């Protein structure tokens, strides 16, 4: 890009291919995530959204191609170096993956306890701060099984952010939540990103709401990324695959009832 020479690329996928058995899930995936922005990966279920995410996390290795994080190829790193890279990561898993035999406080405190030499008082202050940021007070002693789905997600987000990561990954952050709980998560996302200034990668199919958060939207379809562009461009794109996706997922939502009828008649 000529008009933005100073944009740093945080994560770059170059020609990533990956098969599971005979099924090729990723066929030459190319994607760049700019530092400080929010990139949303959308796509129908089973198209490999989570697989892309797992490649970025280094949990899966590509059959061919490279995954670069700040210029380092994850596949070529040794275990200890990969660990260094992951110190910049925060992850909110699809099923949250809280440690179910620890209470909320210990869950959020775990990265601090294991990765820093902070004293127990410092840890307490930091954890309380993050929990307060998530509007979670008075749940310190509860166990994950005693929390509602929305609260679990918020605890997961607190845990993901407790080390002030540079890149935060969200795998389907609002799956299984009702509309108001989803909005709550988005609000917290906004609030925390404004404060902590992290790069965000969101995998979601909560279209169109997710577009309000996105700086870039990438559609994965049939193992390839169809364009990585701003939400406005995405919605107006000429690319037939993107057009179909936009029509299918969000067409009727933006229409009034009359327009909707009009669309249906046309179709």
């Amino acid at each position: 890009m000529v008009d933005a020479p100073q944009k740093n690329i945080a994560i770059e996928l170059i020609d990533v291919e990956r098969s599971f058995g005979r099924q090729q899930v990723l066929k030459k995936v190319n994607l760049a995530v700019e530092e400080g922005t929010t990139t949303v990966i959308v796509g129908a279920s089973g198209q490999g959204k989570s697989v892309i995410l797992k490649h970025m996390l280094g949990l899966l290795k590509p059959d061919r191609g490279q995954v670069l994080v700040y210029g380092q190829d994850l596949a070529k790193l040794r275990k200890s170096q990969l660990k260094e890279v992951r110190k910049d990561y925060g992850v909110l898993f699809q099923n949250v993956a809280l440690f179910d035999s620890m209470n909320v406080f210990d869950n959020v405190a775990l990265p601090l306890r294991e990765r820093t030499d902070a004293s127990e008082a410092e840890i307490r202050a930091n954890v309380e701060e993050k929990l307060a940021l998530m509007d979670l007070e008075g749940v310190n002693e509860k166990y994950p099984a005693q929390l509602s789905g929305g609260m679990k997600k918020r605890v997961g987000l607190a845990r993901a952010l407790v080390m002030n990561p540079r890149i935060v990954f969200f795998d389907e952050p609002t799956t299984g939540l009702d509309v108001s709980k989803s909005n709550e998560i988005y609000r917290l996302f906004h609030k925390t990103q404004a404060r902590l200034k992290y790069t965000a990668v969101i995998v979601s199919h909560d279209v169109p709401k997710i577009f309000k958060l996105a700086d870039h939207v990438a559609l994965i379809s049939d193992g390839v990324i169809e364009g990585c562009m701003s939400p406005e461009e995405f919605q107006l794109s000429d690319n037939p695959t993107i057009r179909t996706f936009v029509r299918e997922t969000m067409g009727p939502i933006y229409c009034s009832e009359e327009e909707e009828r009009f669309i249906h008649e046309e179709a």
Partner: protein
Amino acid sequence: MPEQDKASKNPAKWLLGTLAKSLERIGAEGLYYLEQVGRMGIFLFACLLNVVRPPYKLFPIVRQIHFIGYRSIFVILFTGTFTGMVLALQGYYTLRKFGSEGLLGSAVALSLLRELGPVIAALMVVGRAGSAICAEIGIMRNSEQIDALDCMAIDPYKYLMVPKFVAGIVSMPMLTFIFNVAGILGGYLIGVSLLGVPGGSYFQEMYRSVDWADVEMGLVKSLVFGLLIIWICAAKGFFLHLERSGGFGAEGVSRATTSAVVLSSVAILVWDYLISAILL
């Protein structure tokens, strides 16, 4: 059916094909087990490497010793006492045939120290702690908690495995010791109080016949068994997702736990023989 047609036309080719297919199956089976053995080996190496590598954290180890060791004490005392009692009972009637009831103390002590103490104590720990370890780690694997650790740059070997390995190796000899003491006292109870062997000769004979080599053998066995139990049970849970059946869900965990318990029990008895053969 064109394939059958071909087969009937060329029986040699058909025979060769069948042979190749069964060979292929044997090969695949062999590779699967080879892979599993290799994985277990690397797992053990990684765990032991992390045990000796700093930083050392005491508190998680103490917690695991509490779970594996302290909370097994009651069951160990109980089984130990009864093992000693039955040894005294059986031993008494055997020894009486030779008129040497006085040797009862040494018979009980030697069987316990060299053989039954380490083995039965280890089998009890497999049932109590080994199965729990396998299930706990298996569930963590299934619900992506281990992936979560990885992504949080927390080494699951260091965080999950090291405390369990250290606790297993520390607890097992102590539990064996408790088992032996309980057994010897249980033997005393039956032999001396019930069957009328003179109390002095019970301990006197024991003192004369037991030497350091017997204690050492029991110690070596209990250390090896402690390592074996944690190794097999933890690895079975840790590699749940690589099981051939897929290791999915609650059933996957239960299957892995069962096979961990069976495998570690078998391993204990096999290694018991091997250590005895080497040290005797």
